[in-house]
């Protein structure tokens, strides 16, 4: 076991249940609330994000539970139409902007990018803390919109509904998303500069772990797409408050313009959610197979390809909104093209597993779940990109199922995979592996049971966003609600055994999975300054088999 980075300091004895690494780690560097709230340590900021997004996830999941409960029967029993609208708006706004977009980048990107590239911190530590505060300010705006009665526009804020007809606290919700956007932009700037300027000696671009590559691509989207959303929401606010008519036809405006501007951000935003997940899966797959990743450069460049082409496909959300046929044809074509780099990644992950000695641990089960569900989501995405099919299933549960396969089946599953894989590094303790596998199974089965019936419902014509439906759809809706409860169990379980592991888990050691990567060469949990001396990197990211227990041989 490598003892690098440890100096002789007071160790066991002073605090019984604490290991020496823990006593010297970032977690013990100040215990006051103040030392957490004013920290500029990227690892502590990551923990702040982890706590806050988990809370937001709980709020939005509660809204989803209400919706699934309502849809158990064809009639409106639990919620009124108005209440249902508010529930799905709340669910969408919080899940998209306060959970999915910050989930992997702000928790794991924050924690791991400096460790993976051999740096002491992100390039702008104070900016990093500021971005958490901005994020929380946005969160408070959302919660106040909720407390004052909610919003009923849907997370897409389509005009003229959002600008003229909607009741409720639309301006508060718009302001919340606007503010959270600035947090995204600052994080994106921080990642780009860090990856350019803080790589350790010898850490060339070709030696970057793929997690870092995908975060680079994500940061580009964050920086270039988010400001467009910001200005669009500003225009909607101006229209609602001052009556400026950019999107109002009665005043000479154009509602389709809103959809263009909104999806110019919000389609790339899907890649903000899924690219980091792909980075996580690239790490998990190589770690489980103990093999070099098949086709490193293909996977690296496919991230940049997704980021680039992802900017050119937004029009596929408007096939039935009166967009010109020629524009639609081109957007349809580009939407098919953007699937190619994603498919490349899936093939490369599978090829990496070929002849590997695979460890079927919890983290890997989540990664496998991601691949399967992401393929389902991706293939149905191709169907939706085709003009003829899209007209048939537009605004039905088919679309709902499709994007949940990508966002929940993909991004959330990968997020949980990352939690299980890097938990020992973050807190220095191992969780119960058996419970980890059980929760992975619950989530995979529960997820499919929830959302596969929705593909069928949508194909049969059940529209989204209604709280009542014809009785013939009830069987599938009951199945879906039953699946949601399994999914809920799958999400609650990790909370319990992970919390339990914090005090009672076995100590993890520097490199519990025996994998490569600079983050596994430092103690678990890492000391405040990550590396006692700047590491020098001499080989590529996935050099297996390890010739030494520590990951740099």
């Amino acid at each position, binding site marked *: 076991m490598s003892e690098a980075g440890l100096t002789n300091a007071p160790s066991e004895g002073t605090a019984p249940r604490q290991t020496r690494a823990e006593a010297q780690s970032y977690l013990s560097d*100040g215990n006051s609330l*103040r*030392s957490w709230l*004013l*920290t*500029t*340590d*990227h690892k502590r900021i990551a923990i702040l994000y982890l706590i806050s997004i988990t809370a937001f996830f709980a709020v939005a999941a509660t809204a989803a539970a209400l919706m699934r409960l309502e849809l158990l029967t064809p009639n409106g029993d639990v919620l009124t139409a108005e209440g249902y609208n508010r529930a799905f708006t709340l669910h969408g706004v919080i899940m998209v902007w306060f959970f999915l977009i910050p989930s992997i980048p702000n928790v794991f990107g924050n924690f791991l990018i*400096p460790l993976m590239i051999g*740096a*002491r*911190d*992100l*390039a*702008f*530590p*104070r900016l990093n803390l500021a971005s958490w505060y901005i994020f929380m300010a946005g969160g408070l705006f959302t919660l106040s919109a909720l407390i004052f009665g909610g919003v009923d526009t849907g997370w897409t804020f389509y005009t003229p509904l959002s600008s003229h007809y909607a009741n409720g606290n639309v301006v508060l919700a718009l302001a919340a998303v606007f503010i959270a956007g600035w947090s995204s*932009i600052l994080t*994106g*700037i*921080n990642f*780009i*500069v*860090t990856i*350019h*300027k*803080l790589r350790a000696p010898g850490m060339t671009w070709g030696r970057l772990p793929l997690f870092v590559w995908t975060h680079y691509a994500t940061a580009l989207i964050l*920086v*270039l*797409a*988010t*400001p*467009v959303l*910001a*200005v*669009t929401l*500003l*225009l909607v606010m*101006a229209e609602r408050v*001052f*009556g*400026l*008519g*950019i999107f109002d*036809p*009665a*005043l*000479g*405006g*154009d509602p389709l*313009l809103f959809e*263009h*501007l909104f999806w*110019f951000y919000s389609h790339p935003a899907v890649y903000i959610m899924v690219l980091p997940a792909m980075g996580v899966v690239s790490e998990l797959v190589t770690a489980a197979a103990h093999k070099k990743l098949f086709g490193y450069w293909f996977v690296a460049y496919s991230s940049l390809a997704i980021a680039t082409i992802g900017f050119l496909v937004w029009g596929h959300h408007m096939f039935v909104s009166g967009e010109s046929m020629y524009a639609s044809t081109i957007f349809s074509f580009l939407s098919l093209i953007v699937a190619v780099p994603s498919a490349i990644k899936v093939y490369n992950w599978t090829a990496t597993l070929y002849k590997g000695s695979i460890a079927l641990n919890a983290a890997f089960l989540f990664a496998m779940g991601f691949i399967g569900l992401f393929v389902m989501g991706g293939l149905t995405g191709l169907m939706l990109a085709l003009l003829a099919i899209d007209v048939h299933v537009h605004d039905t549960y088919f679309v709902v199922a499709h994007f949940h396969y990508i966002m929940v089946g993909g991004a959330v599953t990968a997020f949980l995979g990352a939690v299980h894989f890097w938990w020992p590094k973050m807190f220095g303790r191992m969780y119960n592996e058996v419970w980890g596998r059980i929760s992975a199974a619950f989530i995979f089965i529960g997820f499919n049971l929830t959302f596969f019936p929705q593909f069928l419902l949508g194909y049969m014509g059940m529209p989204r966003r209604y709280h009542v439906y014809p009785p013939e759809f009830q069987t599938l809706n009951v199945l879906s609600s039953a699946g949601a409860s399994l999914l809920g169990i799958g999400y609650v379980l990790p909370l319990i055994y992970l919390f339990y592991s914090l005090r009672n888990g076995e100590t993890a050691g520097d490199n519990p999975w025996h994998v490569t990567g600079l983050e596994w060469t430092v103690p678990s949990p890492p000391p*405040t*300054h990550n590396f006692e001396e*700047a590491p020098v990197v001499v080989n590529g990211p996935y050099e297996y088999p390890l010739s030494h227990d520590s990951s740099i041989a």
Partner: protein
Amino acid sequence: MTIARHEPFADIAREREADRLGMIVFLASEAMLFGAIVMALLALRTFEPTAFAATSERLILLAGAANTAILLTSSLLVAVGVGARKLDRNRLAMALFAGAALLGIAFLIVKGSEYRAEYLEGLMPGVGPRQDFASPGARMFMDAYFIATGLHAVHVIVGVVLLAGCAWRLRGDAPPSVVGTGNVGLYWHLVDIVWVFLFPILYLSR
């Protein structure tokens, strides 16, 4: 007591490089912010060409042109000021930055007087003594005009504060770094260049 900053950089030169790159990436983000508005203006110009041209004619061309000259001059001062800071002629740099900040304020005064004239003429949508729009397209043009120039004016205000702060710090023994001064300069150039796009789109499309 303040909690010590977690320091990522081993040497100062690298930190300055990072500061510059950070500023450039931020400016790319800012460019996209205005890019969305320029796209909206282009859409309007395509769909409502006559209303666009007719309403553009009601803007005060002289004021717009004067403001263009003011901003371009201030950008020149900033560029020379950044050069002076490089040569360690900090007093000169201070004077130039202060001059640029004053020109920024002059820009805001001219812009404000334009807004006042438009308010009185009934060109401010939704407010004012009367409303005087020939068509929905005309009103739409003025909506976009106020959003675009208003957002730009917010950036001018931020830029003036940055320039003034920079000038203030340049007077003493602890001047801002060469890269730091350069970054403030870059921000001001962005403010300038956004106007260089807005001016012809709004004022000259007649």
